[in-house]
């Protein structure tokens, strides 16, 4: 199946000479949730803004369901909804009106039923006659989602949907994304919360300094790069790793109070049994143990450091 969004050799150099995107290519499949991870200033927002028509590309092409984003901007943009990172709202506008305005901008006739359903889904119906400034931060965020969905887009961009929001709203956001995914909406979100990508995404792209460092299925990524840690809390602190155990990948931590063993959880032999046997042979006792899986966050930090 042809990708619903295809970015080819996209470059953006701002007027001040800053290269925000360096020859970026990316395909997004219909119906997937794609998380774009990267530190601040990596180019996430520039990439989204360029696709949505807010920033003029220096070179390269963008096609949305076969429509060129520049020459056929009307057809392309009709398919796209955008929830920007900051929460730009007109403080005095009325909640219901502003959603109607968004729909109108996309050339669609007013549809009261749709707007009612959206506002109810996003628990804003009670507030429909209030000015936007009367909304809380979380409500404003949901209102922006309602506005972005008012023309029933096939692709939804969420630029840092949960930056600076509380836990409850974050889970709310995850639920909304999940519901949209069930309805077949393609979702592209940026975040620097790894937890969020792990929770929601099917695929993850890591972007750093204007380049896509890596794109992979999330599970695949975690499997490939996933390491596990075994931590042993020793009964007696050690001053050094015993000679007989040096072939194992061991490090002493907490002033010798704990030993950490790093292993590949996908390997056929993790070496745990051997290690434990040799530990008792060497007379090293432990009173507790725990294992840890490296998260996307560790993977991400590794990648960005290398970059």
């Amino acid at each position, binding site marked *: 199946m042809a990708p619903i969004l295809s970015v080819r050799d996209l470059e953006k150099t701002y007027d001040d000479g800053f290269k925000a995107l360096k020859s970026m290519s990316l395909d997004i499949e219909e119906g997937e949730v794609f998380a774009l991870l990267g530190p601040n200033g990596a180019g996430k927002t520039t990439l989204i803004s360029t696709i949505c*028509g807010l920033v003029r590309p220096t070179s390269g092409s963008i096609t949305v369901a076969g429509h060129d984003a520049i020459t056929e901007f009307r*057809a392309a943009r009709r398919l796209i909804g955008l929830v920007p990172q900051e929460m*730009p*709202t007109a403080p005095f506008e009325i909640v219901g009106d*502003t959603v109607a305005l968004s729909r109108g901008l996309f050339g669609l006739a007013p549809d009261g039923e749709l707007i009612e359903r959206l506002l109810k889904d996003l628990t804003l119906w009670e507030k429909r006659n209030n000015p936007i400034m009367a909304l809380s931060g979380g409500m404003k965020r949901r209102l922006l989602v309602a506005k972005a969905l008012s023309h029933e887009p096939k692709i939804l961009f969420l630029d840092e949907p949960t930056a600076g929001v509380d836990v409850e709203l974050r889970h709310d956001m995850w639920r909304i994304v999940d519901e949209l995914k069930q309805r077949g909406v393609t979702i592209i979100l940026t975040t620097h919360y790894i937890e969020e990508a792990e929770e929601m995404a099917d695929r993850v792209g890591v972007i750093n300094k204007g380049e896509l460092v890596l794109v992979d299925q999330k599970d695949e990524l975690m499997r490939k790069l996933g390491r596990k840690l075994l931590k042993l809390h020793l009964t007696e602190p050690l001053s050094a790793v015993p000679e007989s155990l040096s072939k194992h990948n061991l490090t002493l931590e907490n002033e010798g109070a704990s030993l950490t063993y790093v292993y590949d959880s996908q390997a056929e032999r993790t070496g745990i049994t051997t290690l434990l046997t040799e530990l008792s042979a060497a007379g090293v006792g432990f009173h507790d143990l725990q294992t840890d899986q490296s998260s996307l966050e560790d993977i991400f930090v590794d990648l960005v450091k290398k970059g």
Partner: protein
Amino acid sequence: MNFEAMKSIYVSEMARTRRTVFQSVISPVISTVLYFVVFGAAIGSRISEINGVSYGAFIVPGLIMLSLMTQSLSNASFGIYFPRFTGTIFEVLSAPVSFLEITIAYVGAAATKSIIVGLIILITASFFVPLEIQHPVWMVTFFVLTAVTFALFGFIIGIWADNFEKLQFVPLLIVTPLAFLGGTFYSITMLPEFWQKVTLINPVVYLISGFRWSFYGQADVNLWYSLLATLIFLGGSLAIVHWIFRTGYRLKP
């Protein structure tokens, strides 16, 4: 053309006017009407007629032009500046709307508002001073052309301005003085010869003169020059707007 989008922007801009009716309609009407009361009814009778027109009636076209110009400017500049300031402009720029449609909607709404203000002033004036409109077609032409031209000009200022200071600068420090010195309150033929010539470089003179001619049939400059000046201003503004959209100036980096 995305008519639905133009309608939506227009409707939402007009809704903004309704929400701020005191600031955007009543206040300019009152401040202009005060001039009729003072100059027309109170001290106008002590000022001699100008070419057979009572002083109170003489200043009406100039005052309408003054408020038409300043209102168009401030409505249009604020209308586009505020969404830039709050960031909500992203929605318009990422929608399937062309720049032409954006301009028509914003400028149309701003011109509509100032035309409403101008009409209210005209109607109110007729209660205080004896008015006649000898050339109604010309009157409407100048009325609408000026509103649209200055709304376009304001649209440019609203895109150019990057703070509220700049937004106020042109209407308050350029247009208002030019209007006061451009014959709102006097016929430039009343000036010494030297100043008459100097005044002719003030573009507002042509607008006020043409508009006043459509009321009383008397003008400071040739009618066609008035029309030409308006059209040049309109054409210049259109060219700048075209350039803004071609380059994405201050809207699309």
